[in-house]
């Protein structure tokens, strides 16, 4: 079997269950705003209340992303981002933290071009636990799925407001770790979700699977994180965190000295609200 000694995702959900609380997944784009500051943020996130860490793999054409994450991808790519540096950053995190699950989220072409088998193997060796490939529906995922199974890497699939009954069986066949509910019809960081719809849909998902359910795409602040955490197991906050980095760049902050603490403080606030929502 694979190289993952143990299942960090499973363990984390067991811990959440034991502590009777919900979890928080902050999202940041790889190497944003530069490799050093990104690594500082990455390594500091678990101590700020991140139960999981989601890292966006920059892509030239991020079709599912709104302006915030588009902008962060573009600035990272301008500095000639390479996947190799992302694997190195995750390896560095693993020196100080070997329990917080790391999820990579990206588009298929960089993975396909890197070599699917090689990508999975390098990611797992670096300490990555799961992969979300936005533009890879289960119907096209056979090859990635095989390699992921071999290496004990979780493939996490999205469930959308449009996902109908028939698609659940197709998705659940390959899904592992948890399911990611996209709370809005739209791209990341744009509109806000309708709470009633989200609640109904997540309840429906629970009738189909015992996998934990994360919710993301439309969560912008601590209040929303609190509300969404009530109905799900974990909440993902992305664009709002990326915006802190964008603002710091826009303000011309020197060497980003105060940026990590701004991110940590926001994540801490989110985490407190998620905690408040209880089990």
């Amino acid at each position, binding site marked *: 079997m694979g190289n993952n000694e143990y299942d960090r995702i499973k363990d984390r959900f067991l811990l959440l269950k034991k502590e009777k609380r919900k979890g928080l997944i902050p999202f940041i784009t790889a190497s944003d705003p530069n490799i050093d500051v990104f690594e500082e943020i990455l390594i500091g996130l678990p101590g700020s209340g991140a139960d999981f860490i989601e890292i966006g793999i*920059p*892509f*030239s*054409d*991020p*079709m*599912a992303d*709104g302006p915030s994450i*588009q902008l962060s991808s*573009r600035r990272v*790519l301008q500095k000639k*981002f*390479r*996947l190799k540096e992302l694997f190195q950053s995750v390896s560095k995190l693993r020196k100080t933290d070997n329990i917080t699950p790391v999820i990579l989220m990206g*588009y*298929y*072409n*960089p*993975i*396909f*071009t*890197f070599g699917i088998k090689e990508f999975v193997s390098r990611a797992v060796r670096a300490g990555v636990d799961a992969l979300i490939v*936005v*533009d*890879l*529906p289960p*119907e*096209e995922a056979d090859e990635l799925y095989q390699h992921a199974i071999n290496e004990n890497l979780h493939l996490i*699939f*999205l*469930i*959308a*407001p*449009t*996902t*109908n009954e028939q*698609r659940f069986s197709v*998705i659940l066949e390959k899904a592992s770790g948890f399911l990611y509910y*996209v709370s809005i*019809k*739209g*791209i990341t960081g*744009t*509109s806000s979700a309708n709470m009633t719809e989200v609640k109904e849909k997540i309840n429906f998902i629970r009738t189909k699977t015992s996998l934990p359910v994360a919710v993301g795409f439309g969560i912008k602040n601590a209040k929303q994180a609190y509300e969404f955490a009530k109905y799900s197991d974990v909440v993902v906050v992305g664009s709002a965190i990326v915006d802190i980095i964008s603002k710091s760049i826009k303000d011309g902050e020197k060497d980003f000295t105060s940026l990590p603490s701004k991110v940590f403080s926001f994540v801490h606030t989110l985490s407190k609200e998620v905690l408040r929502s209880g089990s």
Partner: protein
Amino acid sequence: MLKNTQFSFEDGKNTSHFGHFGGRYVAETLMPLILEVEKAYFSAKKDYDFLRELKGYLCNYAGRPSPLYFAERLTDYFGGAKIYFKRDELNHTGSHKINNCLGQILLARRMGKKRIIAETGAGQHGVATATVCARFGLDCEIYMGAKDISRQQPNVFRMKLLGAKVHAVENGSATLKEAMNEALRDWVANVDDTYYLIGTAAGPHPYPSMVRDFQSVIGQELKEQILKEESRLPNYLIACVGGGSNAIGLFYPFLDDKKVKLIGVEAAGKGLDTFEHAASISGGVPGILHGNCTYLLQDNEGQIRDAHSISAGLDYPGIGPEHAWLHETKRVQYVSASDEEALKAFQLCSSLEGIIPALEPSHALSYIGKLAPSVSKDSIIVMNMCGRGDKDIFTVADALDYKI
């Protein structure tokens, strides 16, 4: 193929993949919708009433069949093969794009969609989409790269006259690729009432097959016309290839006629040895973008490179997935022509034939200039004149340092 005395329709293969190309690489939000489009299309193309209605609009609204024209002076000029033009530039709206738009708009109506979105490069597909939306009273929003908007002003104004809203896309190279990204983002956000009318034989399944079927009217008509004219099939069919909808429409009905050589001409921009071209097959590798696996211009990290062509309609870093497969199976040969070569062919065709071609087919014509003199005089070459050049006069004037 569904045939009767009134019309024929190319009921092509329905497979979601062409070899390892094609597929449906879209976010989950769109998957149910893509499957719905597929279901609706497969049902429509078996429906006699749908096909009869389409045929009616193709004849009486778009002006089909388009003529087959013997380009006598160009034939004499090159001194080799007989050169024919399939005159798809004479269609309503000035290009082959209307063939596909009529098919898809009837499908969108059948699906009960009220709002149509589309991407456009040169503006030909945008104009054709805005046209059918005006005709059928549907809301129309067009995504167009800011760079393309500035070089295709006449088409932008035409779209506005037709009642469409034109969104300028400023991201990246601000051309067709970014326009398609934005159209996809719009679709994800408006899945309930919106139909995405893709203009080329690319994107997630069923679009490549569907667009090909709707464009195959070009090749079907040609087959009848050339048999009447020459009592035999052509030796060569030539078409320009960006996404490749006019080329696949010309080629598809001839795929099984193995003696007919099929040649697609990509845009070599400033040269294949530079990064400034749009020749995905000649200068790209397989990858995944905009819902399909196909040949793409990209770097070693899988980041898509910006394409370049003087022709906005060819300025795209990918190609339809069936072309990728026809290239790998060697049924179609893909060559390229540069900006400069296309500009020369543009002027030559205007002065010798009295036909101002679009810059897109000027690439194909430029290749004919190399091919025709090298083959016997009894050979027949047919080129798809897929668009007229009115939209390009500003670009060409600029390239020739002529002040309008």
